[in-house]
């Protein structure tokens, strides 16, 4: 009875507990940051701040993650950029357009949307896993990353990697019986949900702050961000 009971717990109470904690944590982070006070920028603008913000989002979301050579000094570290970009593509592809994940959204939000065929999702997952491994190796050998990496960063990597690998094992029906793989995947996901607000994976939210600031600062000066 073990896996079945465990799975029901992980898919049910544990998942929602993790989700509730996630919400709690993210709101906590949001308010802690936002309420620290903001200084008004009194400098008269030359260009349009909003224009800068729009351009920077278009560039950073659509172009730059995939074309490292846009920035001409990247020759030394293209790997981080490509692997990072591809990883995020894979991540979003899977969690929004993988059928099982769409069903999770559907059960929470009440509506669904078309999904990608399973083989595509599997390929995306494989690419995501490969890019994560590449990023791990990079973190192990790159001198700057060696200097700035702290314990939490290894946790970040591991906790992001686990849902990928368990999800892949589960959807490909490798090694474990389905319920065991499903349970492992849910453990990984619940762990991730809890870990996000405690770590730098929360950049999915704070990214919008820094990116907006960046766009506004460059837009103000009428320089392409």
């Amino acid at each position, binding site marked *: 009875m073990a896996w079945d009971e465990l799975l029901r717990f992980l898919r049910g109470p544990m998942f929602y507990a993790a989700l509730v904690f996630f919400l709690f944590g993210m709101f906590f982070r949001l308010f802690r*940051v936002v309420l620290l006070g*903001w200084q008004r920028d009194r400098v008269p603008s030359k260009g349009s701040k909003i224009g800068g913000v729009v351009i920077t989002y278009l560039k*950073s979301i659509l172009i730059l993650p995939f074309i490292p050579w846009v920035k001409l000094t990247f020759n030394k570290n293209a790997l981080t950029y490509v692997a990072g970009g591809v990883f995020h593509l894979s991540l979003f592809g899977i969690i929004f357009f993988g059928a099982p994940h769409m069903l999770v959204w559907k059960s929470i939000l009440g509506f669904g949307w078309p999904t990608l065929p399973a083989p595509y999702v599997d390929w995306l997952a494989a690419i995501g896993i490969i890019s994560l491994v590449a990023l791990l190796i990079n973190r192990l050998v790159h001198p700057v*990353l060696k200097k700035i990496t702290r314990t939490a960063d290894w946790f970040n990597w591991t906790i992001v990697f686990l849902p990928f690998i368990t999800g892949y094992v589960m959807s490909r029906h490798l090694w474990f019986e389905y319920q065991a793989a499903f349970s492992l995947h849910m453990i990984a996901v619940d762990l991730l949900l809890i870990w996000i607000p405690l770590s*730098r994976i929360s950049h999915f939210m704070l990214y919008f*702050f820094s990116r907006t600031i*960046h766009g506004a600062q460059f837009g103000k000066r009428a320089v392409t*961000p």
Partner: protein
Amino acid sequence: MNAESAVSANVVETGKAKSTRSETAVNALIRETGGWVASQLEACTRCGLCADGCHYYQATGEPSYSPVWKIEILRRAYEQRFTLGGRLRLAVGLEKPITDEDLEHWSKIVFEACTVCNKCSLVCPMGIDLGPIIHRVRGALTAAGVTPKDLHDAVQKQIEIGSPLGLTLDRYQERLEWITDEWEVDIPMNKKGADTLVAFTSIEMMKFPSTIAAIATILNKAGENWTISTKGREMVNFGFFEGSDEHTRLFLSRLFDAAKELGVKRIMVSECGHAYDALRWTAANLVQVPKGLTVTHIIAVMTDYIRSGRIKLKKGAYDNGTITFHDACKIQRRGSHIKEPREILKMLAPNSFKELTPNREQSICCGGGGGVISIKEADPLRFAAFGLKMDQMNKIGAKTVCMVCSNCLLQFNDGLDYYKSDIKARSLSDLVSKAME
């Protein structure tokens, strides 16, 4: 705020008791940390990509020169004071408190290995505006009194004498007289009712008088109603290098006071980068800018003259040998005057003007800005960084390189000398003044 800034001008306690230094630094770091800094600090994913935007890291491969490491001290201070996790880690000893040694370390990398050129912010996938954040780190280190001695002395000189190079008012006037004679230009002084107040930098005064003459020639030729002021004679703002808001305010208000006194409509920054950043893009947040006063840069003014026909250029005047343009961090990347110099150069050298790669807002910094050039200890580093610039120029076979920043020009002269290159570094105003019909 700005009222008291003038009062408490001579600060930077050198005799501060050692044990409280780090505390002072931490206080200074978090004092200014609002949502603006905090949100960006928390957005950092520690991917280390910013290192590839930094010319010092590119040139040396030293990991502590990566921008993310430069703001690490701020990150630590922020977490130790502002976040529960950080406090916990500090309490159980997982994280060490900031020590005086740390301050020394960061003083070295933040002042000597950073020109605050902000290229890293373009590289950052999160778009974190690293330059201004590093500026704050500098400010905190200055508050704790660990500014490099050369820079500290220069600031003291600017406070006391009015020029970081120690150019006294008498010497200043002598020098101007000599320039007036040598190049036969009129330089109006303390002229009430002028439209434009021009201030020059001590670097120009001492090292590039020809630039001053060139600017004066251009302004006169265009029939500009301009003046210089003995009260606000120094354009550079070493307080801005220090990151000290207080000193920045002091030096800014000297200029603004002069502008108010003479009743000018605008201040024109001569070929100086950080002064433009300070006056145009920072001043309004630090001091009360006199109403109706605008700040502009010589490159914008020159281009206006050419566009409106107030001065005419000989087409193709410099069409002998490849000529290129160096984009300065504060004037181009952070000042937006990217199109103007190209417009001029396409007139002066339509056939031989070639771009460096990368260029425009992506340009690689000269390696001497942000006060680095004033710190003797940083010389090897700035020459190493200049190597990148050399490569860029050699790649296109440049014979002449021009720019609109005297700080860059000084760095180019030193660097070209160091690398024993034949390339000539010129000021764009100088080129323009000599190519006027």
